[in-house]
């Protein structure tokens, strides 16, 4: 297939879409969250209901990816009105079809947030939950059928890819990405454009692009939702990256815990191959690119790039010292570009709208938007995307709907086991890379766990240390032994058996582990401890017995 053939297909699909404009669309959320709440049964029942009423020619039913408010699921969105129904079960489908589609009267008590707002919004886009958000990486996630490439093509899918292949040189693409100022969304926030440029500059016959979908942070499900809701977007991003850096092969490393994401991504690859969007001489150009899925086998450390590479090579996922960086010597010793799922999902809009457009969103040092996975003691748990620089207060109260059960906000945990806590005093912090770092936390991949007064911060630190201890690959001593020792000390504090000396030793150890570990896992393992110590020190001190014991000489055996 060449470029012309693809345009013909897109044209035909768009014409079909135009003809269907009068049709009502019922989007049923089939993201992992809603499926767990029973949306597949809802979808089946809805199809039966529409068929039974003979409305098939007037109503399109679309199974879509994640819409956001996961704990209100299963969700149905009616377009063009944009009425969203929450907690739909098979018993009220008939009522929704009758009222919404035939009588044109929305059922207020079933609308989204009907139970938490004085009056729900009939057009959900007016609700602060959606109004405060800005969807770029998640755009179209809740609108299109992730299992149909045609749906993606109609929504300007592969348009950026086509533009890149025929109108831009690799240098142009890199310049555009650099101008957008996008930074890696996996957590560390390295400027993506520079990474691409570095890989581009190494001369090699073979280069690789890797999509890092090993979302290991507990409490994070952004990558999962993007891969499940719009897999083609990620694939397009990978192919554009391949073109820009000169790679001909891509690997998507996806967690084994995400079977649906794996299934949909593999399907997307198959569909793209069929249309000639992957393969040799793509659309008649000089560029050849192929993508394979690699399934992760459950090791948190494999989110670290060198460990991930080892895992793709079929080995134990242990990290290597850097340099050499993967950009120079990565997969099988070849220059390799590794980007996070969310970063790759933002590539095609940047190419379509220009780097300047993207760079104007967000703050001076952190451009664009960020997807957060809101969870914990919050009313509207789910997936959100906001411009960088949105305050934590806006996220928790305007979008998140406040603390569950009317409790009091105590802290928000970001960055998972590598991050830290933000206490109530800093509710007005702007969510961007620098502000979070200055508070001793990190942006991380985007997990945001809200805690109320019932959460014990020492136990939270112990929980994360247990996680790091368990997930340490064991290669370097500071991490392997240090996390174990810190965990035992934290356990001692939790059991009310620790002395002031233990607390001192704990802080000392934290510095050693942070400084001496080989990779990011150990290097950031003390973060949850240090940040809870910084903001909630009294919780530690309250549990210390013998506060007067301050040094080793005080510790004389009593017998």
């Amino acid at each position, binding site marked *: 297939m060449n470029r012309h053939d693809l345009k013909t297909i897109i044209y035909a699909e768009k014409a079909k879409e135009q003809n269907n404009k009068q049709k009502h669309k019922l989007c049923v959320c089939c993201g992992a969250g809603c499926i767990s709440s029973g949306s597949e049964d809802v979808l089946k029942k809805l199809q039966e209901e529409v068929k039974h009423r003979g409305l098939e020619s007037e109503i399109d039913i679309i199974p879509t990816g994640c819409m956001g408010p996961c*704990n209100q*699921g299963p969700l149905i969105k009616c377009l063009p009105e944009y009425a969203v129904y929450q907690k739909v079960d098979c018993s009220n489908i008939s009522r929704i079809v009758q009222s919404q589609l035939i009588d044109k009267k929305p059922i207020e008590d079933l609308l989204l947030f009907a139970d938490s707002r004085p009056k729900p919004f009939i057009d959900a886009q007016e609700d602060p939950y959606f109004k405060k958000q800005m969807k770029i990486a998640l755009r179209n996630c809740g609108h299109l059928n992730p299992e149909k490439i045609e749906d993606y093509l109609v929504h300007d899918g592969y348009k950026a890819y086509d533009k890149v292949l025929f109108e831009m040189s690799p240098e142009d693409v890199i310049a555009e990405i650099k101008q957008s100022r996008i930074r890696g969304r996996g957590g560390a926030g390295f400027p993506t454009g520079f990474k691409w440029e570095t890989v581009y500059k190494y001369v090699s016959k073979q280069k690789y692009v890797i999509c890092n979908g090993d979302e290991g942070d507990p409490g994070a499900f952004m990558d999962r939702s993007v891969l499940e809701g719009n897999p083609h977007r990620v694939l397009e991003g990978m192919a554009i990256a391949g073109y820009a850096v000169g790679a001909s092969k891509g690997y998507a490393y996806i967690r084994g*815990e995400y079977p649906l994401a794996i299934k949909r991504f593999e399907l997307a690859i198959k569909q793209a191959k069929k249309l000639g969007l992957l393969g040799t001489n793509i659309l008649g150009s000089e560029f050849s690119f192929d993508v394979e899925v690699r399934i992760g086998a459950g090791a948190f450390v494999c989110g670290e790039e060198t460990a991930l590479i080892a895992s793709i090579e079929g080995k*134990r996922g242990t990290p290597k010292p850097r340099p050499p960086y993967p950009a120079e010597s990565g997969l099988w010793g070849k220059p390799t570009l590794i980007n996070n799922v969310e970063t790759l999902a933002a590539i095609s809009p940047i190419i379509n709208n220009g780097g300047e457009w993207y760079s104007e969103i967000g703050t001076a040092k952190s451009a664009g938007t960020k997807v957060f996975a809101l*969870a914990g003691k919050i009313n509207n748990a789910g997936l959100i995307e906001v411009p960088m620089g949105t305050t934590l207060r806006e996220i928790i109260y305007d979008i998140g709907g406040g603390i569950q059960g009317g409790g009091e906000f105590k802290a928000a945990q970001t960055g998972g086991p590598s991050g830290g806590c933000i206490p109530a005093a800093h509710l007005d912090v702007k969510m961007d890379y620098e502000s979070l770092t200055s508070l001793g936390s990190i942006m991380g991949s985007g997990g945001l766990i809200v805690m109320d007064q019932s959460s014990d911060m020492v136990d939270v630190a112990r929980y994360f240390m247990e996680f790091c201890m368990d997930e340490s690959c064991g290669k370097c001593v500071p991490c392997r032994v240090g996390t174990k020792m810190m965990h035992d000390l934290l356990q001692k504090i939790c059991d009310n058996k620790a002395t002031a000396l233990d607390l001192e030793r704990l802080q000392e150890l934290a510095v050693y582990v942070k400084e001496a570990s080989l990779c990011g896992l150990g290097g950031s393992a003390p973060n949850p401890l240090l940040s809870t110590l910084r903001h909630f020190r009294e919780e530690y001190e309250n549990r210390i017995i013998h506060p007067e014991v301050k040094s080793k000489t005080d510790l004389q055996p009593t017998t």
Partner: protein
Amino acid sequence: MTAHTQHQTQEKELSKTDPRVKLIAAKMKKENYKPDALIEILHTAQNSYGHLPMNVLKYISKELHLPPSRVFSTVSFYHFFSLKSKGEHTCLVCTGTACYVKGAQQILNEVERVFNLKPGQVSADNKLGVQVARCIGACGLAPAVIINDEVQAKADSDAIIAKLKSKMETV
């Protein structure tokens, strides 16, 4: 005695006509017997057996020309792979941060109290296995428990116990 029989079954020669062996053989052929496809092949093997018996690992190591130690060390490194049977029915409790904040531990305690099984253990009759996961990514629905591949959203311990009991009775 149980340990002895288990040892014997694990060491039993693989039958080439076993459909599960055929699946693994086909996967290895598809991957061109490349050692770097080891993890992919182990996924296939675990999907068909439910766990990774020792004789299967030996078979894979022979076919890929890899030392058995390399195969074993890879298997033992990753949480996903299991050398032991996980039980006919499985109860996997997510202990990710969101689930932890919302009381996953209470569910685990209750499961342990009722069935006398700690995470990683399988009941003597192989009916039920209890596991924990670091995060299954269903944080919006915390606490989450997976019973036989089916996610139980916003789980509470009584409902989980009841569900497990009914599953164990049906077969």
